[in-house]
């Protein structure tokens, strides 16, 4: 099963194409990394996959053929958007209540235990938590929905190194222990090195490279994901070399 399938997918804002001719198959059971410079179309692709945006061209399905944004798709996908938006004036307990109410499944014991472990008090307002704690809260709420696919948009961009490490550890635990497929976007390549097993490289709204990380490294003769991505970006964007 593929967790995301796109064919000829495109999204236009006004006259500019944020994403063009995107054809992709991301297999299940992977941590897939969506990599590319700012403005490459990473957020656009993720928004299309979770159904927040409607495509201007082509089609995208998720979780084995479900239309993105359909009830069945929303039921199986948990999305943590960029800057982890939470209701800042609500308490952590309220956020748990709301997320539980809005979903068919919610693993409340997991959410409670995880937040306890992280030292996030339930009575504290979400807006009073540190950036790292807010990100962890958003991630915990997403995982407690027991999704089949977890989609994360630039999850660690705003976090300090320690918070970044902790966040990715939680993601990895869910992926390895519970078999959750993960699709995450990032421009912090070093952070993806340890976690990603599948790579999608975007630049200027187009897919430049997609495939199994190990396979790509072998065929391209690169030692690391970072080198691979940089080499590929230099090919497609000559100005990077200067």
């Amino acid at each position, binding site marked *: 099963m593929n967790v995301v399938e796109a064919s000829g997918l495109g999204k236009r804002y006004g006259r500019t194409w944020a994403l063009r001719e995107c054809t992709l198959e991301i297999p299940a059971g992977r941590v897939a990394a969506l990599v590319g410079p700012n403005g490459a179309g990473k957020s656009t692709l993720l928004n299309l996959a979770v*159904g927040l945006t*409607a495509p201007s061209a082509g089609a995208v399905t998720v979780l084995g053929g479900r239309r993105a944004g359909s009830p069945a798709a*929303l*039921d199986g996908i948990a999305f943590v958007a960029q800057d982890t938006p939470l209701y800042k*004036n609500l308490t952590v307990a309220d956020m748990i209540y*709301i997320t539980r109410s*809005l979903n068919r499944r919610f*693993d409340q014991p997991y959410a409670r235990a995880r937040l306890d472990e992280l030292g996030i008090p339930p009575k504290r307002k979400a807006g009073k938590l540190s950036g790292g704690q807010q990100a962890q809260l958003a991630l915990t709420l997403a995982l407690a929905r027991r999704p*089949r696919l977890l989609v994360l948009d630039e999850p660690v961009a705003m976090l300090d190194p320690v918070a970044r490490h902790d966040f990715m550890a939680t993601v990895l635990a869910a992926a390895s222990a*519970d078999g959750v497929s993960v699709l995450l976007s990032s421009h912090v390549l070093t952070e993806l090195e340890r976690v990603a097993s599948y790579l999608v490289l975007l630049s200027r709204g187009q897919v430049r490279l997609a495939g199994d990380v190990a396979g790509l490294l072998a065929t391209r003769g690169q030692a690391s994901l970072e080198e691979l991505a940089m080499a590929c970006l230099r090919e497609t964007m000559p100005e990077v070399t200067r």
Partner: protein
Amino acid sequence: MTALTRPVRRDEDDARPRPVPWRRMAGVTWRQHRIALAGVAVLLGALAVWLWSIGTSLHHAYAAAVACQPASSAACGNLVNNFNRSATDHAMGSKGPGGVLLQLLPALIGAFAGAPVLARELETGTFRYAWTQGFGRWRWALAKLILLAVVLAAATAAFGALVSWYYQPEFATGHQALGLFQDSPLVTLFSLREVTFPAWTLTAFTIGALAGMLIRRVVPAIVATLAGYAGLAFAAGSFLREHYLAPLVTTSINFNLPGASTAWTISQWSTKGGRFAFAGGFPPMSLVNQFCSSVSPGKAGPADPFAQCLAQHGYTQWTSYQPASRFWPFQWIEGGWLLVLSALLVAATIWLVRRRAA
């Protein structure tokens, strides 16, 4: 590291999940909007206590004036004057600031409760959270709007009943002879009664929701709501309301002196010998000088002295009016079209929620 406590379930119905029940939105809506709802409750509660306390004294003044015997005595005249003063000069009287301020209530409640519902989500980015939950985004928006609308309608209907009680003595008929101040329920605070107050509040609320969806920012959406509401309320009061039912026409000159009738005068004109003479309730100065130079406007008696004078010279005064007995039909007509408008605004908002790109 805490792992998920149960393995990810592969439900048979995963491909066609049962929708999350609507009732779950009650708690969600309450948690997200309790501050706005508490604000409305405090505002209406405080005004209700104030209205009740001054209303009690107005009702007492009215009862004393009506019960006074003999009606022609000086003491009774004082009681009548006392009531008329309370009815007109008081903060809530027809000339006081209170009535005007109350007119702002539907707009303020609707704008401050309605505009942020979607605008705040869009402004802070939390729509990316809300619209990707299993509940589904259009159901989420519809449930929220309907729940808030019902709560606001119930609160404002209760307040509208209190406003009606407050003005009851002024709208009462049958005591014109005593010279008690009277006002038309079709004119004074017509939009703040049992049916119209909730209807106008709903309209402002739904204008706010749509404006929030279109503008995507809380403060500009509130401003746009107030402006849109003001335009609609002005149009309804100035142009629409008088046409709800065809007005009645009378040639009685004893009709409708200011402050002495509960009917709503739409227009007045005079004819002589079957031909149009002049428009308005007051004759042109040339006619006054010609026929009625000896008549003084005096104080409002049982009939207009000029009209009486001109009637003797063959003039007929026509008045088109809406009788006070049409209060309830007018309430339901206005409430009805406002409710339809609100439903259309909600439908437009939901349509935008469904198709809006992030």
